[in-house]
């Protein structure tokens, strides 16, 4: 076995198998357990990082798993999968380090071993999902991360909100998962293979109807997992999870899975008319709508949640436009700066004890490190040079502009302005102005600031890595027609293109907001008006879904009469069923 294969297997097995041993180590001492879990996290991160030199094209190793059906655990180490695994491993490790202090208060009420093993399971599941080329194995890991998100969103199970929120996340993503599974089975039926690369080669021979059904199923799976319109409703509610977990869900693990799936399956459905257009418009509309909702939220984590949905919309739109490189680069940079922003929000929540931005304000004097890190994260989110977010967002917009997709380009450009507005509003409400509550404030402890500093540095400097990144993408992904971009070209292109005017406009908007429109923006959403009501109600999605579910529930209630609960009737039913079965069998055979 090659060493790279071994590393890939270990990166999945160590967190998944090692995680449950948290319960064993806890018997020695709780402190040893915490150290053990964090060590596992950092070992996993190191293993994923050490996969970079061995990036190669296609499936490197197929272990036959079910010989009868010719199903193997394909391990693929191309640039697409390895970098998603790295994001999961590294941000996961930093989030675990951050958890030492952040989760300490929960220790006397909830089991921290449960927290640590589920987090490790989550990270391992995401790495496994990324590193396999077999769709069935991918689906298994897909469900593992779905389960972990459900369990971790409901972590604080004594509170009233987390359990329904976790259930909602599970059920809403399940709607998409059914589509994904159906898509896999259709592809298996049509091509006789579950390996992504084998399917790519024969995709053109599959009948368009089957391919279209499978493509729609894959889109449904990605829409559910990546919280796109109209299945985005679970993600804002998932904010009741511990902040470390939300940063994992939003930046490192869960939501990236959908975008990754579409990028991975892009060559299969490339020739299908309408497939990429559908993704383009789902992404664009999601980006725009979620950004408008983010303007109105008062909960700091919900602002970031809608921001995540909006930014994922950018990634989806980029895939729809065929810009796989831009989409994946944005996934990486978004992973970094969104994890940074969530961990900043976690530090703020940790010291102020509230999530409501109306009770914050004036934190800049007391939390200097968090303040600077949050500024870097927000500027990256908004897309100000020379942070990573600027370059990656520019790549997507420039690609849309060059591809002649002007409607989507215009909507995403407006979204960029909205992003600036809600980021500014969030920053001003939390860090600037006067203190609005009496709680005593201090800087967060080092276990929390170290991950912040690492992530802030990464979001400042990650774009410098573009040349080796695109080189590995270009060499390991022959199906995608990706060209190598040198750093000089990259910078020149970013500053010379037409999209630089969007950045200039955004900068002017921020200046105007700070100088002139401060009170207008902050006070605009205190009371609903005709214009702001749809935004404040999040376009009535939740209410509409509640009505639908309630109607369905009432419909199926009528069938309760069949279930008498009477043992005699049940037995009679069994006998009648058996007789019908026998008669059918006789009719069939005779």
């Amino acid at each position, binding site marked *: 076995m090659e060493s790279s294969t071994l590393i890939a297997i270990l990166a999945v097995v160590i967190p998944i198998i090692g995680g449950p041993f948290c319960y064993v180590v806890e018997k020695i001492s709780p402190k040893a357990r915490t150290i053990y879990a964090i060590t596992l996290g950092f070992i996993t991160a190191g293993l994923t990082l050490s996969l970079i030199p061995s990036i190669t094209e296609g499936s490197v190793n197929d272990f036959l798993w079910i010989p009868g059906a010719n199903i193997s655990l394909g391990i693929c180490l191309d640039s697409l999968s390895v970098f998603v695994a790295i994001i999961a491993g590294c941000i996961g490790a930093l989030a675990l380090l951050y958890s030492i202090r952040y989760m300490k208060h929960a220790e006397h009420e909830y089991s921290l071993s449960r927290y640590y093993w589920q987090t490790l399971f989550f990270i391992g599941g995401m790495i496994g999902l990324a590193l396999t080329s077999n769709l069935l194995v991918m689906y298994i890991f897909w469900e593992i991360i779905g389960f972990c998100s459900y369990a971790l969103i409901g972590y604080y199970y004594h509170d009233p909100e987390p359990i329904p929120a976790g259930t909602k996340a599970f059920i809403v993503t399940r709607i998409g998962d059914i589509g994904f599974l159906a898509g896999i089975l259709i592809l298996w039926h049509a091509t006789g293979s579950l390996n992504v690369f084998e399917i790519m080669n024969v995709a053109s021979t599959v009948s368009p109807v089957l391919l279209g059904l499978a493509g729609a199923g894959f889109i449904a799976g990605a829409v559910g997992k990546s919280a796109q319109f109209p299945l985005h409703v679970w993600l804002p509610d998932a904010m009741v999870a511990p902040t470390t977990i939300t940063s994992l869900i939003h930046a490192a693990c869960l939501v990236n899975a959908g975008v990754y799936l579409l990028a991975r399956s892009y060559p299969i459905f490339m020739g299908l008319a309408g497939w990429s257009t559908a993704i383009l418009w789902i992404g664009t509309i999601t980006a725009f709508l979620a950004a408008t909702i983010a303007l109105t939220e008062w909960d700091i984590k919900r602002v970031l949640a809608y921001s995540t949905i909006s930014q994922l919309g950018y990634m989806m739109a980029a895939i729809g436009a065929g810009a796989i490189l831009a989409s994946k680069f944005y996934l990486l940079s978004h992973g970094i700066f969104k994890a940074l922003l969530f961990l900043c929000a976690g530090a703020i929540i940790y010291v102020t004890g509230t999530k409501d931005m109306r009770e914050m304000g004036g934190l800049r004097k007391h939390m200097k490190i968090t303040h600077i890190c949050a500024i870097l994260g927000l500027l990256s989110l908004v897309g100000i040079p020379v942070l990573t977010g600027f370059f990656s967002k520019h790549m997507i917009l420039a690609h849309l502009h060059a591809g002649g997709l002007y409607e989507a380009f215009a909507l995403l450009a407006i979204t960029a302005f909205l992003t600036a507005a809600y980021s500014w509003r969030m920053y001003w409400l939390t860090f600037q102005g006067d203190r609005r509550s009496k709680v005593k404030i201090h800087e967060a402890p080092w276990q929390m600031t170290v991950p912040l500093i690492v992530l802030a540095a990464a979001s400042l400097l990650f774009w410098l890595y573009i040349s080796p990144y695109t080189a590995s993408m270009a060499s390991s992904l022959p199906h995608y027609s990706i060209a190598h971009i040198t750093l000089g070209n990259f910078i020149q292109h970013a500053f010379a293109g037409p999209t630089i005017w969007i950045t200039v406009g955004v900068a002017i908007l921020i200046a105007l907001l700070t100088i002139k429109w401060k009170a207008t923006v902050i006070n605009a959403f205190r009371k609903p008006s005709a214009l702001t009501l749809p935004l404040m109600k999040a376009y009535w999605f939740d209410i509409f879904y509640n009505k639908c579910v309630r109607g369905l529930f009432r419909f199926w209630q009528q069938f309760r009469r069949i279930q008498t*609960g009477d043992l005699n009737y049940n037995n009679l039913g069994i006998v009648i069923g058996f007789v019908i079965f026998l008669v059918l069998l006789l009719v069939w055979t005779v």
Partner: protein
Amino acid sequence: MNLWQLYMLAIVILIGIGIYCLIARKNIVQLLIGIEVIAKGVTLSFILAGFFQGNEQIAQAIVITIIVIEAITAAVAMALIVRSYRHTGTLDIDDLKKLRG
């Protein structure tokens, strides 16, 4: 009529009586007896199957195992019935419909 046809008839009668008992009776003890009667019919069918296959020894070994397991299930069921009777004061299953969906 062959011997094995008699056997077959006995199996059908036993299982039929047991199922009729399960459908028609309300008393838990009677239901348990019905289940036991069905189990006897199934045991007999094992002997018959062993006879057809020509390896009676294995069939007998299985039958002895089934009898042992049956004794255990009967004991557990009786214990449950006794506890349930002490708890609710009734043996009628219609009075025990707590799990009605």
